[in-house]
């Protein structure tokens, strides 16, 4: 294998997540694990181009990182000495037990449950997951969430300190806790994915990297934890992701599903994701992510907008509403109802949601569309104005302004 810098960067990226997870599992100390991995990467960057890339790069990095961790523990005088000695002994045993080509046990599952523990704030869960499981730097995460690097560093250290001091265990939860805890993990991954599409004021960046990280995380979880909702989330994210090229025009203006050029969709990915979904649904344990994926699959496999299977989409939204009771699902169900032909009834359902969804931009946008379809131009105009005022970015704004103009 060649040792040029792109190859190195690729291997580092591939292996870092697993190695870091294994280090955290042994050291129980996020910062020490990160520092030790950084040391190992520096050493690899020096040694590999000279001596060639080892056949198991991950194992190499792990054993070097362990030795560096021992060095760091020895040097540190602030730690409790008993604990330090104990950790050093454990690390030594591991180093002598596992030689170069050991199979690194995958610790990422435990790590993801720890990083997504509900005792951490949602912001902290997202940041910590991106930092430790995806290997993004604090700077990269800060940029993606449009906050400063120092704010992000603070958020990360507070989260790590809470894990250490509050007694958050480094384990996969027991069976009776698993559904609730898994819910938190899936929500974090979906949040990371959605964040990739919601750029804020004046920015059109789609933050493609975040979307890829979410796909990667869902994929890791899918491989490590067989669960219908995990498969559902993976299928859902990949079905959305398959349509990315058609979502914006060259000027960054959003293109609605109705007007997207379906030839630009990644049909191989759609086929794969639909396959995962179908075998999952066959297990007969439906859940919210599987249902959302099923809706997405019906869109992704429709020849065009008018040949979409609206009655089935309506039925799926009904099921989803019964599962979640969410007003946003009720809104989407109403839109599906309108697209199945009953616009008048849809608008009365939507109007009933006006209190709970008053500050939700898509509510006003959907209401405006329905009013326009019924020919109520003035009311539609007002609703578009509300939606435009609530938009968080230029792409959304431009999209709504264009829609309002088209009507009049």
């Amino acid at each position, binding site marked *: 294998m060649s040792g040029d810098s792109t190859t190195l960067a690729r291997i580092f990226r591939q292996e870092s997540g697993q190695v870091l997870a294994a280090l955290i599992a042994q050291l129980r100390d996020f910062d020490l694990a990160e520092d030790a991995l950084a040391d190992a990467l520096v050493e690899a960057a020096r040694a590999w181009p000279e001596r060639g890339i080892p056949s198991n790069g991950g194992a190499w990095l792990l054993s070097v990182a362990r030795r560096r961790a021992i060095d760091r523990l020895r040097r540190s005088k602030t730690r*409790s000495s008993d604990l330090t000695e104990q950790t050093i002994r454990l690390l030594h045993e591991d180093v002598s037990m596992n030689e170069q080509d050991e199979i690194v046990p995958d610790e990422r599952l435990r790590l993801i449950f720890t990083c997504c*523990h509900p*005792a951490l704030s949602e912001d902290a869960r997202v940041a910590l997951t991106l930092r430790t499981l995806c290997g993004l730097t604090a700077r990269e995460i800060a940029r993606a969430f449009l906050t400063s690097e120092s704010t992000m560093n603070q958020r990360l250290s507070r989260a790590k300190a809470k894990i250490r*001091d*509050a*007694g*958050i*265990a480094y*384990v996969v*939860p027991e069976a009776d*806790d698993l559904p609730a805890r898994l819910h938190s993990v899936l929500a974090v991954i979906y949040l990371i994915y959605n964040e990739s599409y919601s750029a804020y004021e004046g920015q059109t960046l789609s933050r493609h990297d975040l979307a890829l990280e979410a796909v990667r995380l869902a994929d890791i979880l899918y491989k490590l934890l067989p669960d219908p909702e995990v498969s559902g989330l993976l299928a859902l994210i990949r079905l959305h992701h398959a349509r990315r090229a058609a979502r914006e025009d060259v000027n960054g203006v959003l293109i609605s599903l109705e007007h997207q050029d379906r030839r630009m969709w990644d049909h191989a990915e759609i086929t794969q994701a639909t396959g995962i979904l179908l075998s999952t649904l066959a297990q007969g344990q439906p859940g919210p992510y599987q249902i959302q994926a099923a809706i997405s699959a019906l869109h992704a496999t429709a020849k065009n907008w008018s040949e979409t299977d609206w009655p089935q989409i309506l039925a799926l939204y009904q099921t989803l509403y019964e599962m979640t009771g969410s007003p946003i699902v009720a809104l989407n169900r109403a839109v599906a109802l309108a697209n199945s032909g009953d616009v008048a009834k849809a608008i009365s359902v939507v109007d009933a949601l006006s209190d709970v969804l008053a500050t939700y931009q898509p509510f006003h946008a959907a209401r405006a569309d329905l009013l326009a379809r019924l020919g109520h131009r003035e009311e539609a105009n007002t609703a578009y104005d509300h939606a435009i005022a609530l938009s968080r970015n230029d792409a959304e704004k431009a999209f709504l302004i264009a829609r309002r103009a088209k009507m009049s």
Partner: protein
Amino acid sequence: MKFMALIYSVDGSQSSYPGDLMGDYHKFGEEAAAAGVLIEGNALQPVSTASSVQVRDNKPAITDGPFAETKEVLGGYYLLDCKDLDEALKWAAKIPTATYGTIEVRPVLTIEW
């Protein structure tokens, strides 16, 4: 690890508890003791009995009432010995007041001298 479960609820709200509150507390205490997690636990007299003291310039200033005027007041506590936060939270969720108040769970800080 030692965890403190601090039991908060709106003053006087225990009357909204649908069952036998004292009986359920008794059951909780027995269950936690049998599982070996209970170190100790106590209910406190109502917040109307609270006095606060602050020492400033070496002079204690005593005032009537709790430290902070909040809707929810501290009504009691349990000291639990659990393997991790998950276990502590599981026990805290079984405290009868959790159904209408809030149980704050915090590890006890251990300092090595």
